[in-house]
């Protein structure tokens, strides 16, 4: 068929429209919502109040994580009378969106128009780094409850930014040592998406793995967020002759990778290891049987056998009808840490809270097990988790402890 002319159609316009679609991702993240009536802020007569900005993704790729975080946060407050250290808590939720463009704008709004006393949350590492100058300028505390980039709490960290979650390199390094002992001489293939977090995981894994005598059989960096078909990479893994694979994927990519790893016949012959996000939360159910036997490293599993976790997991499942994910646990712990800090601090300023956090010592009632701040990042134990079927449901059973680490330079 050889069609003739289309008056009025210009290629430039079509491409412009395509670009507009690409820009879609930047659209959301404008809304924020206040819960509970603000009561006379810091007033002397009545009850003291603290206003906390909960910044979590409510739209885009990470919206599922944001939901878990909100639930963990809400659950802690509901079980502790809605108070932090004698302060009545008002939570202002803001949508972080997917990118620093939306996230930093949301943080600015929280600090400037909502005038919150502290910001909690943040999933995206670039957003966390972008928010650091904002909170420093406002002299408010930013309590990071997920974003894992090293520099957030690294050597050049802001004194106002503290993290209750993890550093990417921690998760990868402990698994690197473990795999070096187990598959070191056979060769391990390293694969993670081509963006900042993927690079951190790959580099930290390879460093610890090689240092412990392991041999890297090959590595790959699939484009981030646009790869849905992993066949080219799976063929490369097969051709490399590696005896195990270390990977970092999360969300929809984790589902696609684990399912295709099984469909292309690698699951039976080459054991798959990864950072815990590979099989965490909602993605595990979506992966289904393909995930059986996948082993991951993380600082939490809802299967952990300790009293704090048992009561947390039971309360969470009871309220939300789903087991808690690491994201929910991190938000719960953020609330717990903020409660302790406000108890110890003179006021709600970033400086006072930072000083209080420094003196917190061991957090002994966390569902992840005891941990403490080392610098401004958790020093905590990591677990080797294996996906097993338990009562017809897939769970991350705890197989081993991989050791305790603090921030890795």
């Amino acid at each position, binding site marked *: *068929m*050889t*069609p*003739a*002319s*289309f*008056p*009025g*159609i*210009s*290629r430039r*316009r*079509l*491409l412009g*429209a*395509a670009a*507009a*679609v*690409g820009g*879609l*991702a930047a*659209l959301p993240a404008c809304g924020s919502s206040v819960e509970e009536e603000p009561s006379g802020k810091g007033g002397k007569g009545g009850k003291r109040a603290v206003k906390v900005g909960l910044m979590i993704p409510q*739209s*885009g*790729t990470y*919206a*599922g994580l944001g*939901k878990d975080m909100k639930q963990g946060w809400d659950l802690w407050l509901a079980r502790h009378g809605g108070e932090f250290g004698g302060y009545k808590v008002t939570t202002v939720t803001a949508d972080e969106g997917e990118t620093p463009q939306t996230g930093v704008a949301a943080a600015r709004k929280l600090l400037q128009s909502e005038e919150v006393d502290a910001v909690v949350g943040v999933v995206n590492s670039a957003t966390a780094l972008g928010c650091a100058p904002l909170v420093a300028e406002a002299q408010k505390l930013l309590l990071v409850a997920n974003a894992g980039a090293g520099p957030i709490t690294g050597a050049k960290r802001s004194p106002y930014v503290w993290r209750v979650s993890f550093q990417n390199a921690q998760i990868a390094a402990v698994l690197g040592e473990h795999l070096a002992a187990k598959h070191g001489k056979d060769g391990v293939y390293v694969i993670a998406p*081509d963006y900042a977090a993927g690079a951190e995981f790959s580099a930290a894994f390879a460093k610890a793995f090689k240092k412990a005598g392991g041999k890297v059989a090959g590595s*790959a*960096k*699939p*484009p981030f967020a*646009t*790869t*849905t*078909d992993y*066949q*080219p*990479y799976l*063929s*490369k893994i*097969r*051709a490399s002759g590696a005896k195990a694979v270390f990977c970092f994927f999360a*969300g*929809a990519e984790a*589902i*696609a990778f684990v*399912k*295709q790893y099984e*469909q*292309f*016949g690698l699951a039976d012959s080459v054991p798959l290891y990864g950072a815990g996000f590979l099989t965490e*939360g*909602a*993605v595990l*159910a*979506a*992966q*289904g049987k393909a995930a059986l036997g996948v082993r991951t490293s993380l600082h939490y599993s809802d299967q952990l056998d300790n009293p704090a976790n048992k009561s947390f997991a039971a309360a969470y499942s009871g309220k939300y009808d789903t087991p808690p994910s690491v994201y929910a646990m991190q938000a719960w712990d953020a609330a717990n840490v903020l409660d302790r800090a406000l108890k110890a601090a003179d006021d709600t300023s970033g400086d006072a809270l930072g000083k209080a956090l420094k003196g917190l010592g061991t957090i002994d009632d966390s569902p992840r097990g005891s941990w403490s701040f080392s610098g401004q990042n958790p020093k905590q134990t990591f677990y080797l988790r294996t996906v097993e079927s338990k009562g017809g449901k897939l769970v991350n059973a705890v197989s081993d402890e991989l050791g305790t680490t603090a921030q890795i330079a």
Partner: protein
Amino acid sequence: MGDWLDANLVGVVNGFAIGFLLFIVAVGLSLVFGMMDVLNLAHGALFLTGAYVGAAVVGGDASWGGFLGALGLAAGLGLAGGVLLSALTEPLRRRSHLDQALLTLGVTLVVAELLVIAYGDDPLSVGAPPGLDGSVPVLGAAYPVYRLALIGVGALLAVAVFVLVERTDMGALIRATVADRDMVAAIGVDNRLVRVRVFAAGSMLAATAGVLGGPIYGARPGLDATILILALVVVVVGGLGSVRGALVGALLIGQVDSLGRSLLPDAAPFVLFGSLALVLVLRPQGLFGGRGVARA
């Protein structure tokens, strides 16, 4: 060397699976644009609707009944959606593409948000029907049966659409409307019905592609934009309003996406749009597009 060849031959097979799926999505977009001069950015939303129908009806443990039922339901929703979109865009036909883009983009946002409200933010997976959910050895490596079946179904649909558009009276009318709809109207043919039908059929294909793609892509927020951009690339590469262009463009982009990643891993993010840019430089009207497009 043998391993290298094996790995890349599997890549070629895989490129066909992706390519045929892209064809099913893109052919509707191409015809609607070519014949009605309507830029339908809601095309991705139709695919997404199909994907969620698949996730809701089929779920993780697929049965043939469920899978075929999902295909039927998606086809019905696609038809209805197409008729609705056709009615919505009709008043904007004489206006600029920006107006159409805004309207259909708005429809996309609304549909995507409704799907999130109904099914939540978490990515959902769709199983392949029994018998197609395993793997078979292809060139020495395991390959999912479903993707092979997808190649078959895609090829069948491609032939059907091709014969319909190129070899039937109805097809002749469609092609004539693409070429010059005013002339078709001037010789006394009421082509409004043709337009609605093409819009509906194209939308139906996009929605069924959502179900067919389910076992590979699953259903998740944001999938609509990913697919729409791929489909737009296919349409631009292949040329507007041409079934042949959509087929060649889709198969080409499938190969570029699959093979490009294994041959040029470091350039993977640029391969897709690099090939688009190359086509635009060498043949601005697309591989099978008429010259008028470049001029306009």
